[in-house]
């Protein structure tokens, strides 16, 4: 038979569209090989190499610019939206590596596999965020999930770690199955898995009304809802977040959520705008349920990690509020909030990581008692991140929530905004409860000395704090970038 004709120019453009991903995967493999070559004392080099790779990848995102580069016959696209999420995901990954410098020494996770698994997961997230074909989205989802399952169970000698990993793995495998089955049903009806082509197919009312297509969309939604932990698909979240090494928890809460929401936003805004009249009711219900259940459960938690896990469920609900209307304004608010959430949540986990002396027992809320005045810097940082999570001005969390709820109001979903604001008010109780413990509760025993942070660790915390404060005061430019990113989808 005839040899396969390869269009060299098209291949070059294709490669160009995934340059950041290629750099991340190459770094992962390099770190893995470097691990073999260097001695036990020099393992911190691995972390440095990883950071270098992430830096280069971030630069390549910047160098590719805002233009739209399609690659691999419509499998992936580097557009404004892809670039935005590349930056969010790579920043979360960089913060994880910066924090891992300290964490790995305390908990013995200085292994090449640890870093390369995080990098491989990051590459999966980026593929997922940029995928314009459901096949790419699914493979990206799996590539991000499998390393995370392993990382959650990284402490093989801790029961909670293994329990969390097993629960996450079993439920996650099911959720992947749902997603894949949904894609298969959609393919059966429309004959395509390409997201932009799906959008044009939906002008046909016969397809829109087809029960198979509705079932496919539903299953697709279940798969995404599991990954971003929307109620009622959130059961794994508290256990996996509590059991995972805290640095992995921080990474999961920020990056996995961003990647899954990126794909969800792309599917909702590009492929399914025709479904919006039906879909908004489902999303409305999910958002209300997620916010309410997440916040109410967080009220009664005494373990800081579990508390932040339920708070992250509630935040998934807030972010979903922006997607109910399916317009640019809401999408822009969701994008902005995802960025802000990554920084404030990872910052909060970082401080908590320093205060807790060891995994499991160290995360009781009573351990926070007396920290505030004895270690003012730590106390101030945690307070800043918590009030930002609670949505109190002048932090970025406030701006994010303001835009989410005002987008809902402008599109006429008044009740949704009211419920969201009420939920937000309730959440302030448990965030401030931690602050009260830090400043107003006298500890029963001597305040344990927090771990001395490494320089890079401090840098991560300071960077997160700067982002939270700066975006709280001058959010304009980032909001504009978010708006351009959403608009780039609809071009």
């Amino acid at each position: 038979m005839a040899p396969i004709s390869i269009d060299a120019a098209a291949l070059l453009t294709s490669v160009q569209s995934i340059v950041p991903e290629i750099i991340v995967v190459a770094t992962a493999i390099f770190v893995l090989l470097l691990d073999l070559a260097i001695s036990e004392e020099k393992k911190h080099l691995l972390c440095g190499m990883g950071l270098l790779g992430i830096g280069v990848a971030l630069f390549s995102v910047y160098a590719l610019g805002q233009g739209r580069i399609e690659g691999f016959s419509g499998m992936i696209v580097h557009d404004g939206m892809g670039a935005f999420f590349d930056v969010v995901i790579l920043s979360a990954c960089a913060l994880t590596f910066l924090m891992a410098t300290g964490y790995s020494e305390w908990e013995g996770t200085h292994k090449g596999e640890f870093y390369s698994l995080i990098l491989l997961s990051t590459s999966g997230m980026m593929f997922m965020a940029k995928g314009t074909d459901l096949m790419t989205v699914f493979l990206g989802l799996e590539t991000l999930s499998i390393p995370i399952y392993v990382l959650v169970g990284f402490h093989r000698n801790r029961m909670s770690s293994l329990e969390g990993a097993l629960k996450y793995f079993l439920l996650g495998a099911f959720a992947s199955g749902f997603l894949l089955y949904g894609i298969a049903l959609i393919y059966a009806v429309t004959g395509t898995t390409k997201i932009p082509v799906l959008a044009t197919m939906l002008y046909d009312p016969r397809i829109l009304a087809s029960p198979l297509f509705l079932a496919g969309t539903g299953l697709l939604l279940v798969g995404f809802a599991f990954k971003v932990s929307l109620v009622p698909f959130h059961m794994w979240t508290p256990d996996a977040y509590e059991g995972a090494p805290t640095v992995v928890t921080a990474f999961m809460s920020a990056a996995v959520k961003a990647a899954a929401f990126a794909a969800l936003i792309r599917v909702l805004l590009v492929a399914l705008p025709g479904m919006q009249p039906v879909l908004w009711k489902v999303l409305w219900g999910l958002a209300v349920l997620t916010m309410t259940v997440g916040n109410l459960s967080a009220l009664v938690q005494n373990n800081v990690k579990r508390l932040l896990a339920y708070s992250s469920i509630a935040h998934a609900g807030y972010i979903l509020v922006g997607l109910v209307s399916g317009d640019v304004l809401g999408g822009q608010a969701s994008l902005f909030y995802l960025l802000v959430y990554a920084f404030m949540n990872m910052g909060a986990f970082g401080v908590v990581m320093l205060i807790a002396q060891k995994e499991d027992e160290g995360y009781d809320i009573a351990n926070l008692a007396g920290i505030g005045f004895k270690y003012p810097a730590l106390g101030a940082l945690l307070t800043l991140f918590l009030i930002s999570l609670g949505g109190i001005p002048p932090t970025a969390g406030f701006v994010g929530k303001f835009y989410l709820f005002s987008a809902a109001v402008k599109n006429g979903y008044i009740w949704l905004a009211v419920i969201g604001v009420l939920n937000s008010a309730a959440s302030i109780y448990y965030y401030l409860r931690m602050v009260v413990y830090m400043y107003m509760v006298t500890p029963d025993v001597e305040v344990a000395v927090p771990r001395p942070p490494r320089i890079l660790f401090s840098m991560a915390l300071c960077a997160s704090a700067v982002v939270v404060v700066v975006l709280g005061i001058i959010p304009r430019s980032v909001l504009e970038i978010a708006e351009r990113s959403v608009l780039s989808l609809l071009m």
Partner: protein
Amino acid sequence: MTGPADVIFYVLAALTVGSAIFVATLPNIIYAAVALLFTFCGVAGLYVLVSADFLAATQVLVYVGGILVLIMFAVFLSNRISSVKLSNPVHFRLPAAAICLTLFGVLAYTAISPAFVLKQEITYQPTTARIGELLMTRYLLPFEVASVLLLAALIGAALLSRPDRPDIPRPDMEEPK
């Protein structure tokens, strides 16, 4: 329609269905797994018969080579073969029969329904070349991402299963207490 192809079809179908019955009824789970092997091979043969050669090879590689071996290992590792009786108990016969008959009815109805157009002439064409070409052109990216996925899975599996310290080998099978 008679001919050697039909004879082969009935032989393969008998092999598939016959061993499937054994899978369901044999009391010993190891025997059932071996019967499952013949079911999988029979299905692979049916695929060859309808000129789906790639699917047949995948069936053998994935189901016979992968999943069946996995089942065997799971059985071997999760039981003390010497003392615990490996059994495949049969409960809920009636509900199971009802569900299976309903499913059979639906599938049979669909198969003979006019939705499927019967092809008069079967032209045997190899599908592997076309699939390979597509993997290298249109589906290049998913193909490559899948390799990253497999790499991650390999690293993860090695990480979870290796002993903590390389100089002390862990006993490969622990006696349950």
